[in-house]
Structure formats: structure tokens, C-alpha cells
């Protein structure tokens, strides 16, 4: 049998982006033996890529702002299928989480009177995003990382977790993985586990996500018997780079539009005025002049349509390109050069300036950018309890992008970084309480460990099988072309069949070389998760016969009020299949429902 090292803790947190780090700080603060396990080096998680800011109703720029408006914006952006309790807690607690970062050393941009400055973003009624230029995610992860390091929290870097194991009572008790540098196996036993593994974007060809976003946490929760929810809701960020091809999909921050940038088609027209949906008509400018005045005066003008929620903008870009009014490389133009001074652009958007200058040879202070939708975020994920972040699998907690509910059918920009902080902390607390109340020593069945390890090693010993790179490529082509931004029944069914074939091919992978730092082998061990989440997204998309937020059906172009009452839950069956069923949300208390009414 293969050998492995063993570690025992109270709380193990898998994933060291914003949510994982915040959870670890909390659990450690409760006096529990806590460790973080992450696939990359510490500080490299995808949080680092977040640009625009963290949404919190601090009211520093607009004193009119408060948690109620933030709650309302989040629910409307999510097309009201959100977990309202999560949206409430998030809006209420985000300000404290931001101030806490400041006390840990973060340096946010300032207002003239020395408070935290806030910027405008799509779907937020007021300028609400605490930020540092366009590198807010870096500030957030570095602050949390430095805090965690100063507290002496144990970190297992470049360590990939393959599977969670349960004890005989059905409590999650162990995690099996391997060290990427050495390829040696490792088993963690703990009283509680927190999944904070982020996104699933690598299953698509054009994505803003890094190699890590393979849906490991989604898949591990599924395999451990936890419920997943809303998996059909995938956010395609409207503005990804489209050229050069090698950087296609790379994120262009919404801050460009928040700071005055506009979208134009090949005729030079600001086409977003043609795509204002009824739901947002009352609060959206209907002339360029009004939209332009809004930047200086939010009270007497309505916001420009370039700042509609992301799903609306992404679909509109898609339509313009399809109608033949796109840019030379298949996107549209994002123009800030003609609207703001070069000094302003370089100060507000320094990393966008460098990104375009160095990767595309485009000077954004003098030329428009070419942009188009890119797979960016999954609203769906593990079903959690709003208060404790507990999943439906005992001993397992989840926070951040891997968890679902807060964002409903579509996430507003800026709500992700605040999500990480609010629910990272709550997951740390929830896991701590669970660990403290758990009796006995978590046990692990050695034969189960052995079988996980053997499964992971299988491609290395197999000759003549398929290359994991080829399989990944085919998966990405499938999801991109059949389960993309606009979906239809026949394509989704075709995708489901294709995924079945890909599953079969995945059982026959061959990898050359050995286990130490072998990216081919690493990819082979990521593919089962990538395939599992692709199945969940496709399955959910087939069931939701309507268009809502990050799920658009060509064959059901409008929202269906009946469908709006349910969320689709998916869970693994012991027989190996996946069960999918609609579930209705608990009714919203009257005082919250009131906030969503017109005029509020």
C-alpha cells in the first residue's frame, strides 16, 4: 500500500483565498487547532485577481447608503432567488469586516476627510466599493495572509485535496491529498472541515479564472453527500479581453465603467441604451446626457445603462456581436480614453493600463479596449446554512464562491470580496462550534484512504491511454459551445451526452513521468472535479426552463414567476447518479420584503 503522512487538527480549511484565510483567522481565534491547506503558494489564490473593490454600505461617500439599500440591490441583482437571510447578514456585516481589515493593516483609498473611499459599480445604487485602485483583491488577500502568518496559523501550501472521508456516523472526518512538490500523499483528520475552494471556471475555454478553479470543493462536497444548489447560474463577466488570443478571457474590471468608461459597437454607438430591461428602467438613464451627469450627481440623475448588472451587460454585448456590430476580434469597444484624462485613467486603473499596454500593446488612455464576455463566477454551489455556513453534510462547512445562496441568479460586482469576509468568518465560527461540540476522535478507514490514493495514481501506471490535456481541451470546448452564455434544450442535452463520453475517457487517462511536481498528473487529478461540476451546471440548466440572471435560455427567453419561487438542489446518489429536485425558499419576513418593493 502507498505510504502517507498524517496530521490531526480541530479545524481544517481547504482553500486559502479570502474566505479560507478569514475562516482560519476566526477558528484560530477561538483557540482551535487550525490549519489551512491550499493548492498553490500562499497568497496566490484567485482572490488576488479581484480588481474593483469590496461592497459595504459604509456610507462614506453617500450618507444615504445603508445595509437595507445594499440588501435590496443584492436581491434585485440576484433576480430575487437569493437566500434572503444570507443577503441580509452580508449587507449588515460587510462594513465591520472592512473596518477590521483596516485594523489589520490594509490601506484603502481615502476620501478627502480621511475615510475609506467608495466607488461606483454595476447594480449598486450608491458608490459602495471600498477599494485600492484596481487591485483590491491583492490588498485583501495580503492583509489576511499577513494576519494569518502573524498569528502563527499552520499552512500546507501546494497541497491538493482529492477527497473527503466520513466516519461510521457519517461525519466528515478526513481529507486525503498530496503534496504537489513531492507527490507524496497526506491525510488530515479533523473535527470540522471548511471548504473555501473558489470557482469552477476552468471547465470553459474562455475564463478569467486561474488553473486552480477546477471546482474541487463543489465536487468533494457532492461526493461527501452534501446538497448543491443553483448550479445553473454561471456568471459571464461582460468585459474580458478578447485579443490577443492568448489572453482571451482575462478580466477587465467593471471599475472601468464605474469610473466613466462606456461600451460602443462598430458604429461607435453606445448600444446599452437599447438594452435596458423593464426591471431596471425606472432607475436607468435614457439619454447619454443624463447618464453622463450621473457620475457627478447621483441624486438628480439615473445611472448609465453600462452599469446595469453583469448578466444584462454580457447578454447585450453578445447580441451586438451576433448582429455583426462587433469589434475586429469579436468583442465590442470599451472606451474610457475619450471620456477621462490620461492622468485620471492611470491613477484609477493602473493595473488595467499595464495589462493592456504590456499584453495587447493598447494604450487605454488613447484607444478603446476590445472586450467580450468571459466565464467568471459561479453563483451556484454548496447549499449552506446562512448563520453557520454548515453544509448538509455533518462536519462540513463552506464559504466564499464554493458556497451558494447569497448572490441568487447573478452576483453584483464587489459583493464577492465582502462575501468572502462575512461568510469566511461565519464558517470559521460555525466550524469551531461544531468541533468543540464533537465528541470522540475523528477516525478514518485506511482502506478508503488507500483506494483514493490508488485512484489518483492510476493514470501514471497506465500505458496507451488518453492525454489529460486533450481531455481538458475537449471538455472546455464542450462547455464553451454548448453550456455558455446563451443556452438551449438541444445543446444542453448534447452537452450532457458529451459529458458522459468524457467521463468514460477520463477513466482511461495516461500520464508520463513521476509524481513530483508533474503538471500532467496534477491535471489528471483535477479532471474528476471539472467533469463533476460540468455535469451539475448542465443538469441544472436543463431543469430551469426560463431565463434568469446567469442562466439564459434561447428557448425560454423570459423569466417564469413559478420558476422564480424555486431553487434546484442536486445531490449524489449512492447508486452513482445525481438527483435533482426543486425546493422552495422560506418566506421572506415582511420587513425585508418591504425593502424590495418599487420605490425603495
Amino acid at each position, binding site marked *: 500500500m502507498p505510504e502517507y503522512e498524517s496530521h490531526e487538527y480541530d479545524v481544517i480549511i481547504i482553500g486559502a483565498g479570502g474566505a479560507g484565510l478569514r475562516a482560519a483567522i476566526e477558528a*484560530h*481565534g477561538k*483557540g*482551535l*487547532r487550525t490549519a489551512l491547506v491550499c493548492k*498553490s*503558494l500562499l*497568497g*496566490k*489564490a484567485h482572490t*488576488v*485577481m479581484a480588481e474593483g473593490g469590496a461592497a459595504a454600505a459604509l456610507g462614506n461617500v453617500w450618507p444615504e447608503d445603508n445595509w437595507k439599500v445594499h440588501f435590496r440591490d443584492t436581491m434585485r441583482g440576484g433576480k430575487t432567488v437569493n437566500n434572503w437571510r444570507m443577503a441580509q447578514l452580508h449587507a449588515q456585516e460587510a462594513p465591520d469586516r472592512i*473596518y477590521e481589515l*483596516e*485594523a*489589520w*493593516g490594509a*490601506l484603502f*483609498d*481615502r476620501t478627502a476627510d*480621511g*475615510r*475609506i*473611499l467608495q466607488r461606483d459599480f454595476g447594480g449598486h445604487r450608491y458608490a459602495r466599493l471600498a477599494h*485600492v485602485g484596481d*487591485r483590491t483583491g*491583492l490588498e485583501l488577500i*495580503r492583509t489576511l495572509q*499577513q494576519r494569518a*502568518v*502573524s*498569528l*502563527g496559523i*499552520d499552512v500546507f*501550501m501546494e497541497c491538493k485535496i482529492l477527497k473527503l472521508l466520513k466516519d461510521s456516523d457519517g461525519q466528515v472526518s478526513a481529507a486525503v491529498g498530496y503534496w504537489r*512538490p513531492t507527490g507524496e500523499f497526506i491525510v488530515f483528520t479533523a473535527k470540522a472541515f471548511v471548504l473555501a475552494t473558489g470557482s469552477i471556471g476552468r471547465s470553459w475555454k474562455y475564463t478569467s479564472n*486561474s*488553473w486552480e478553479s477546477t471546482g474541487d470543493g463543489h465536487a468533494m462536497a457532492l461526493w461527501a453527500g452534501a446538497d448543491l444548489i443553483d448550479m445553473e447560474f454561471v456568471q459571464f463577466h461582460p468585459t474580458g479581453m478578447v*485579443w*490577443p*488570443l*492568448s*489572453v482571451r478571457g*482575462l478580466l477587465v474590471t467593471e471599475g472601468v465603467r464605474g469610473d466613466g468608461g462606456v461600451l460602443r459597437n462598430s458604429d461607435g454607438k453606445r448600444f446599452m441604451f437599447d438594452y435596458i430591461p423593464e426591471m431596471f428602467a425606472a432607475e436607468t438613464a435614457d439619454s447619454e446626457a443624463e447618464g453622463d451627469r450621473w457620475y457627478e450627481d447621483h441624486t438628480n440623475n439615473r445611472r448609465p445603462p453600462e452599469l446595469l448588472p453583469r448578466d444584462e451587460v454580457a447578454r447585450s454585448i453578445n447580441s451586438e456581436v451576433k448582429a455583426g456590430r462587433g469589434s475586429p476580434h469579436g468583442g465590442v469597444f470599451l472606451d474610457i480614453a475619450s471620456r477621462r484624462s490620461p492622468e485620471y485613467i492611470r491613477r484609477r486603473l493602473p*493595473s488595467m493600463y499595464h*495589462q493592456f499596454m*504590456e*499584453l*495587447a500593446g493598447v494604450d487605454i488612455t488613447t484607444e478603446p479596449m476590445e472586450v467580450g464576455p468571459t466565464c467568471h463566477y459561479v453563483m451556484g454551489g454548496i447549499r449552506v446554512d446562512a448563520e453557520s455556513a454548515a453544509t448538509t453534510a455533518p462536519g462540513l462547512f463552506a464559504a466564499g464562491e464554493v458556497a451558494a445562496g447569497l448572490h441568487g441568479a447573478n452576483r453584483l460586482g464587489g459583493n464577492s470580496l465582502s462575501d468572502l469576509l462575512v461568510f469566511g468568518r461565519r464558517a470559521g465560527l460555525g466550524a469551531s462550534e461544531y468541533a468543540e461540540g464533537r465528541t470522540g476522535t475523528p477516525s478514518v478507514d485506511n482502506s478508503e484512504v488507500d483506494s483514493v490514493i490508488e485512484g489518483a495514481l492510476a493514470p501514471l501506471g497506465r500505458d496507451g491511454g488518453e492525454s*489529460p*490535456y486533450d481531455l481538458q*481541451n475537449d471538455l472546455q470546448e464542450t462547455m464553451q459551445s454548448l453550456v455558455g452564455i446563451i443556452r438551449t434544450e438541444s445543446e444542453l442535452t448534447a452537452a450532457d451526452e458529451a459529458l458522459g463520453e468524457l467521463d468514460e475517457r477520463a477513466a482511461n487517462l495516461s*500520464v508520463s*513521468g513521476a509524481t*513530483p*511536481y*508533474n*503538471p*500532467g*498528473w496534477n491535471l489528471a487529478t483535477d479532471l474528476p472535479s471539472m467533469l463533476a461540476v460540468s455535469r451539475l451546471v448542465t443538469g441544472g440548466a436543463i431543469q430551469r426552463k426560463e431565463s434568469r440572471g446567469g442562466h439564459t435560455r434561447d428557448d425560454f427567453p423570459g423569466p417564469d414567476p413559478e420558476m422564480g419561487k424555486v431553487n434546484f438542489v442536486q445531490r449524489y446518489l449512492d447508486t452513482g447518479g445525481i438527483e435533482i429536485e426543486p425546493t422552495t425558499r422560506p418566506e421572506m419576513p415582511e420587513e425585508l420584503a418591504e425593502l424590495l418593493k418599487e420605490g425603495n
Partner: protein
Amino acid sequence: MSEREVNMRVWRGDANGGNFEKYSLASQEGEVVLDVIHRIQATQAPDLACRWNCKAGKCGSCSAEINGKPSLMCMTRMDELPEGDVVVAPMKTFPILRDLVTDVSFNYEVAKRVPAFQPPPPPEDGYRMQQVDIQRGQEFRKCIECFLCQDVCHVIRDHEENKPAYAGPRFFIRYAELEMHPLDTNDRREFVRQKAGLGMCNITKCCTEVCPEHIKITDNAIIPLKERVVDAAYDPIAWLGRKVRQKRKLTPEEAVGTVSHDVATDPDS
């Protein structure tokens, strides 16, 4: 797409040694070095090891030495390199793990020794700081921890024996940032002088030249830090001032003590 070929010489091997292997493939428009490495993985050498994450110059994972220059592979465009073979080697200052991947744990160990940020308790209506007072700190906080400055720094690049007593440019900007932070009350100047080896840096500016974030490491961080540390160590009036100041800054022992106090709450320790 052009028909041109690109010829890469990529270092392959591990701690026991290795050599440059040659890979030829068709060039593609607008590619960066990391794209070519990925295509080599997908088509010719599936086990070729390299680190990467964001592919946008924001995470600092894909550091390597390209034609001898410490650079990010994701931000180095192929069409900006001179004609001929492109040579890609791992960072020299850190031990090799495999191929282009090095063991950068030195940096994470140094990070653990940084005495923690320590603000006063917040006033009722929150901390106030002026933009002008945090601008410099924000420059240093742009650091993406690619460790290219550590790689190029000859104090440790050519002298392994200096590593235990030297923090390196990445951490000098961290110390400078904390030193200039309007809220911090922790005095690390003696620590920086005695334990971080600031005096060993002789300001050749190699670190500034390779910084992909264009942080002026030498001019804006190291030189001011050296001045402050020297003042602290040798200026009797400043010394006296510190002694009599009511809200005094902590001595290095106390500063270190602050960290161990935090660690002491960890049941592990």
C-alpha cells in the same frame, strides 16, 4: 497566425541536476512565454513543471529567468524578445524543485519573522488617514510576491550563507511600508538593522530593475529605511526623544514579544 517557428531552450531537471532541452513550435500572434510553455506541456512534454496562476501579472507565480533576466513568464511577450532561441531557466537564488519550479520557502520563513502590524484601538468613528500619507505604503503594497527582487539580489544570489541573516528587498519594502504606516505603533528599526540585514544591501538597484510592479524598491523603500534605521541607532537626540515620548514605539525585543504573544494564543505552540 504566422508560420514562424519559435525555438525554446527550457531547463529540465531537479535538485540532482539537469540541462536545457530544446523545443520548437509554430509561433502564435501575441503570445507570452507562459503560453509557449503551456503549449509545450500540452503537446510535447506533459510533465514540464512550472508555476502559474493568474496569467495577468497579478499573482507573481510564474517567475523565471528569461534569456538571463528575472521576469514573469506571463508578462513577457515573445515578439519583444530578440530573434533566436529563447532560454527559460528557473530562478537561481532558490533551490530547484523541478524544471522551472524552485523552493521559495525562504521567503515564507522570512515573512514569519516580521513583527506584526500594531495599530492603536480605533476611535469611535473609525481611523482617519489622508491619501497623501498612505500613497507610499500603497506603492509597496502593490508587491505581488513574485520574489524576482530576491532572486536578483546578489547578497543572497551569490552567497547562500547570507540567507539566515538577510530579509531581502521584498521584505525591506514590507518593513518600509510598516514603518511609514500612519497607524502602526511597532518600532522595527533595531530589528531591521540587527536581524534583517539591511546594512548588507549596497543599493545596486538590481531589485528595482526587475520589479514587474515597477515599485521603486531602492529609492523609495530601502534608502529611506536605511536613513531611519541609522537615525534610530546613532542619533542621541532621537534616542532620547524616543525614551521620553509618552506613546513610545516598542523596542525590538518588545516588538518580537508582540508576535510571540499572539503565537502564544495558539494551542499548537
